[in-house]
């Protein structure tokens, strides 16, 4: 049996939304290189809708796949919906992750929450 599901491998081999948004209004970075995973999320939010999202990840196959899936799950969605995103939803959408890789989905959830927090801080400052 393969280590990862077909969906994980698909998102790992062809990650969606890879890169940087130069004029992002919400940026979140979580993890640390010492543990072997870092995720950075860039959000472009207009009228409370996530119109664009991009990510950069340093990490294993499931970390890259989790980042990719998480961006797909929130792209085009209202901020209120993105805030509800859980690691479980990311893992399920990937057709499961090995138990010891579940932290990768947690990291993806945290990266998005962190980017949303950043957005709110900036919006608040602007208001």
């Amino acid at each position, binding site marked *: 049996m393969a280590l990862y599901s077909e969906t994980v491998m698909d998102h790992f081999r062809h990650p969606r939304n*890879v890169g940087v948004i130069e004029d992002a209004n919400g940026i979140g970075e979580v993890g640390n290189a010492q543990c072997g995973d870092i*995720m950075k999320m860039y959000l472009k939010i207009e009228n409370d809708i996530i119109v664009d999202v991009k*990510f950069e*990840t*340093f*990490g*294993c196959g499931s970390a890259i796949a989790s980042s990719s899936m998480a961006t797909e799950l929130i792209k085009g969605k209202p901020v209120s919906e993105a805030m509800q995103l859980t690691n479980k939803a990311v893992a399920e959408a990937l057709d499961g992750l090995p138990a010891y890789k579940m932290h990768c989905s947690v990291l993806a959830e945290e990266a998005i929450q962190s980017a949303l927090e950043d957005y709110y801080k900036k919006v608040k400052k602007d208001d």
Partner: protein
Amino acid sequence: MKVIYADNAATTKMSDAAIQTMLSMMQESWGNPSSLYGHGQAAKEVLEKVREGIAFAIHADPREILFTSGGSEADNQAILSAAYLGRRNGKMHIISSAFEHHAVLHTLEKLEKEGFEVTLLDVHENGIVIPSEVEEAIREDTCLVTIMTANNEIGTIQPIREIGKICREKKVLFHTDAVQAVGHIPIDVEEDNIDLLSASAHKFHGPKGVGFLYARRSVRLTNLIEGGAQERGKRAGTENVPGIASMGTALQEAMAKMGENSAHLTVMRDRLIKGLKEIPHSALNGDAEKRLPGNVNFCFEGIEGESLLLLLDDKGIQASSGSACTSGSLDPSHVLLAIGRVHDVAHGSLRLTIGEDITEEEIDYMIASVKEVVEYLRSFSPVWRDLVSGKTPFIL
């Protein structure tokens, strides 16, 4: 797609001759070596012939060769035997190195729980133990020095002859885990002053689940498995005759071709090292010369090893890494940490252990593939971005 197997330190493909030996033993000489009738005695004869062959290969006496289930069992039995012999004389100090195989390190941890004291020597940046540091570490109550012949991850070859000499002079037993070395580089238990040595058949194109322990006649062994009187009463259980016979064939072949294999592998290894060095911010792990002929181990800054392995696998290259993600733990390889690689860098390691049939074209394909994959992974690595922008300094 053509597959390049570059994980020979993990295991090797069985040679055709080793498979044939195993088959014929299973089909024809399947008797129990402890049985008195001809069929059993024929199996017994095979065992003793293999024992002689192994003894010849490492310059030992056949009576000093004990068949085991592999390298881990041999390591366990060697270390526990020496430790318990020491304890009888009130000697409960053991010296080893920080980057031994877990079969050694975990056995030492078990002994620590029993009251033994263990000193783990530094292996320095080049991955080599310094003999004078072994000498300095030896105390009145030291009963054993156990240092591997060659490291399984970074392939560095240890000065076992010098270490053995020191141990002999200080009257301390010397064990060496030679699992990665037997069949690949010359070993002579007499010249190298070795008292105990562990080996495993599947590292030299033999079968899995079989290995041997060399124990100098003066060393009284402790049994790990109690039962019948097999292996001079030191290892009970009906012998794995097909496996042992097959190991004998594999070792004989490896010994006969050692010079030729080693010369070819060294050229291929150095070509691979030269090519991978061209990748910016990369570094070879372990000494460039005092290393096994087939071992290449690199760290690439800004990327993580597991994703590197998966993408190389997509290109038909089968390798391994010391990254935490490949071990299921949070820490990267203890070997890479022992040679001073920091966590961030150790996560981006790649071990390529090439086989004797490797070609120049395959080496060049591996170089091109690793370059491509490293570059790709760096293209969306936030760590790499911070390094390139100067936010964090490069380590390599």
